């Protein structure tokens, strides 16, 4: 998303284009969909509050979203523990029809993958999401998360190993 000819960022267009991706990322890193939605909104509010548009808004959004999710996990674990004990929080996903990806992947496989993903450490989740889903390079992930590239590779390897084991039904 490039700035317009006047040098201003088209926030509406950026919001429309990136909101779904940022929400999915937050949904991946936070167990609670409502909290993910809140964080997603916070991220865009932060973007709008920027005096100067960031040079690469998509990457900026991703970086801020990952940091905001991490802050949420650190700050509110006790609150979520107390308040978020709902048995099933994915009702909105269950209500709509399956996407082509969902139809291609069996429900049991998806459940296993998600269950194992939730059991990964926060770092492993972040590294896997940025590296495999967002397509960032190892160096970019390392810089954003404040890790060495060796640590990123290690987290990625462990996450991949566990998720593949889940996919094959041998966790």
């Amino acid at each position: 998303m490039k700035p317009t000819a006047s040098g201003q960022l088209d926030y509406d267009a950026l919001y429309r284009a990136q909101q779904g991706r940022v929400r999915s990322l937050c949904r991946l890193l936070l167990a609670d969909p409502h909290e993910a939605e809140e964080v997603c909104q916070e991220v865009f509010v932060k973007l709008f509050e920027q005096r100067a548009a960031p040079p690469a808004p998509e990457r900026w959004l991703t970086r801020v979203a990952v940091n905001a999710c991490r802050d949420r996990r650190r700050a509110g674990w006790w609150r979520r523990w107390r308040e978020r004990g709902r048995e099933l929080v994915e009702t909105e996903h269950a209500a709509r029809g399956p996407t082509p990806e969902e139809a291609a992947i069996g429900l049991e496989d998806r459940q296993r993958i998600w269950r194992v993903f939730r059991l990964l450490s926060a770092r492993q989740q972040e590294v896997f999401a940025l590296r495999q889903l967002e397509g960032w390079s190892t160096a970019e992930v390392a810089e954003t998360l404040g890790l060495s590239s060796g640590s990123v590779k290690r987290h990625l390897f462990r996450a991949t190993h566990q998720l593949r084991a889940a996919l094959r039904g041998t966790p």
Partner: protein
Amino acid sequence: MTRCLTERTLMLLQAGEGSAEERAHLRACPRCAARHRALADDLGVIADALRAGPPPGATHPARLRLRAVGALAATVALAVGGAWMWRTAQVPPPGGGGDVSAQVEDLAGTLFATSEVTAAGEQSDEAAAFDEDDELALLFEGP
């Protein structure tokens, strides 16, 4: 490179890294190439599953919490049980308290007896000396 690639190396190659030698091996070795394709396929399925969002029943916060509470309760029960057993081992059984008292009395008696003997010994020496003086006095002075 003649040895087949490790899973870690395959993953690095899939991520666009790895050395030229490892890439050459990947091109030459059908077995590693098949493993590499399987890894790529698996990662594609995993990425699709994660992008699609959590399916119903994938995450059960309440169940996880229940499991954690259960583990906590078991830990507390173990701690309480251990403390109770330790306390039971420390307190003497009913009727056994007399033995301890008797032992304490014996010990005290031994300690006091020693000091009494010592004191008695000192006293007897003084008494003996006094008696000898008296007898000498009686000899010189007469009855």
